[in-house]
């Protein structure tokens, strides 16, 4: 990515580089569609690595639910998913127009 010359860059990329803060330019690839799409593999690989490490580093004081070496991976995944998925019905239940209290919004 860093080797790209001005000729290989699209108009949008050139505009992006011109407008961006100099310190941000080396990291503009973070917004690349491919990178965003494939970012899922970063936590997935991390998840596998630490699940495997769970076989070697077992808790010194196991909790009653410490049945698998990767129990906490499941807990993290399930808890996070529950919180996020619960937001759908909760939003329907609790969301009101921004000026519901007649005091304007917070900004």
């Amino acid at each position: 990515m860093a080797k790209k010359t001005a000729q290989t860059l699209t108009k949008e990329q050139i505009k992006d580089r011109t407008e961006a803060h100099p310190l941000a330019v080396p990291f503009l690839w973070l917004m690349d569609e491919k990178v965003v799409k494939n970012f899922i593999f970063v936590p997935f690989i991390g998840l596998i690595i630490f699940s495997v490490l769970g076989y070697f580093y077992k808790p010194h004081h196991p909790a009653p639910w410490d049945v698998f070496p990767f129990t906490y991976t499941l807990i993290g995944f399930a808890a996070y998913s529950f919180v996020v998925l619960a937001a759908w019905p909760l939003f329907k239940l609790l969301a009101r127009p921004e000026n519901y209290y007649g005091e304007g919004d917070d900004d």
Partner: protein
Amino acid sequence: MIEFLTPLNPAFILILAGIISAFTPIYQGRKFLLIAAPIAAFVMINAIFYGQDTSEFLGGRLSFAGIDLITLRIDQTSLVWGYIFCLAGLINGLFGLHEKCKITDTAALIYTGAGLGAVFAGDLITLFMFWELLALSSVFIVWRGGEKSYAAGMRYLAIHILSGVLLLAGAIIYGRAVGDYSFNHIGLDMPGGWLILLAFGIKAGFPLLHNWIQDSYPKSSVTGTVILSVFTTKVAIYALMRGYAGTEILIYIGGVMTVFPVFFAVLENDLRKVLSYSLNNQLGFMVAGIGIGSQLALNGVAAHIVVDILFKSLLFMSMGAVLHRVGTVKASELGGLFKSMPITTLFCLIGAGSISAFPMMAGFVSKSMIIAAVFEEHHYVVFAMLLFASAGVLEHSGIKVPYFAFFSHDSGKRVKEAPWNMLAAMGIAAFLCLYFAFPWGGYQVLYNLLPFETDYHPYTGDHVVLQMQLLMGAMFSFTLLKRFGLYPPERRAQILDFDWTYRRLGLSFVKWVNAVWARLGLLMTLMFKRFFSQTGRRLYQVFSPAGALSEDAPSGIAAVLIAGMLSAVLLIVYLV
């Protein structure tokens, strides 16, 4: 009097600086005070505490209305709060260096002083004085948010004054029963114990008493929110630790406090409000630790106070910088800001990693002490709640805040990087977030500050693996939900919380009572009018010259009446 002033309570340096600031027209002078006063207070704390041999310094003795007050107590516990309050005061001063607002400068100094005074209070009456000063000084910071913050400020003031009244009532009941107003362990069995707990609970943001945090903090100014996030709630945690360590009910209250904000934070669009819920959630960890009350738990609470102030300030500062530059912190309006504000992004990510308790970041070395203490005491349900909340923290503060502000979709907003003073303040906080988690000589510095000796080691293989499993599982869930479009989009809305009961239901009830009262008043007036007019008419009909009594009556009727009356009298006399 001289004994009261010698040694001078470090809190008074800040309060005095605040008073001077109010009369200083040149803003550079006020800014000098904002930076210099916390440093002077820090020096003074050390000079007092390390200038004597005992582990607890008691001074500033004063007799007031027959009550012996100890206005200054510095020991290993209050020292932790004292240090971090001075540091926070300095960081806040640096962060707001560009702002030319006399009210914020003055209120910030007095507010910081009130915080210091409260944690160094040796008796309940002194605590009450500083407790109220905290409320009175901070409400001006809330109001600096502009017209929209006025109502929130009034609600803030009302609930904090209520907290003060409860504290005073509880303190008097307790003091009269015990014969001593010293602020030590109180407990729930003592007279006034519940009242004082309720007073502390309001300021600590107990469930259903928490709404003042999310109501007022996000409505303050860029600098104001950062200042507000530090002191009030942390003073309450100190007070709970001092007065209610080992009180079992706090374990469950803390557990609930960690869990419920998670659900609200995910719904919120305003990122400063998200952080306010996150503040509540972190306080929950501390409250649970206080409930456990073991040395490990209380050390965890003290350590978490230090790092929480750092990473929470850091997150609030990064959002403050975004608000300063972009003019909004609505997640729906932001995105792609890392292109314009890369340094702020980096600092925000350090704050996000720290609050999520990634290894090598501050939360990892403090939160784990509390969770381990809960586990050691076999409170498995609360332990599970804390684990759940840890995944929740990653959601709202670890991912949502940095992701929607700096990454996500590109909002097209191109702004300048934050001013140098904001970056410097964030830099100090970020450095300390990393330093206090550094395995080789970093966290040991933090642990050396704690109230009790500890041999706790956060960097064990099983602990690192466990924590990373939890975080990686949660992060994978985020990417998966995002990939399949199951992550809810950020939308502008007002999310109802418990404050609906008084902002809507309560207000509607008051309006209804008012309307009923007005109608009732009208009806009563009408009824009285009718009653008096009818009575008048009847009296007129009877007694007027044309009335019934003026009419001629046959003498026979009078004879019958007199005979009847005589019979009645005779009967009564006979019977009696």
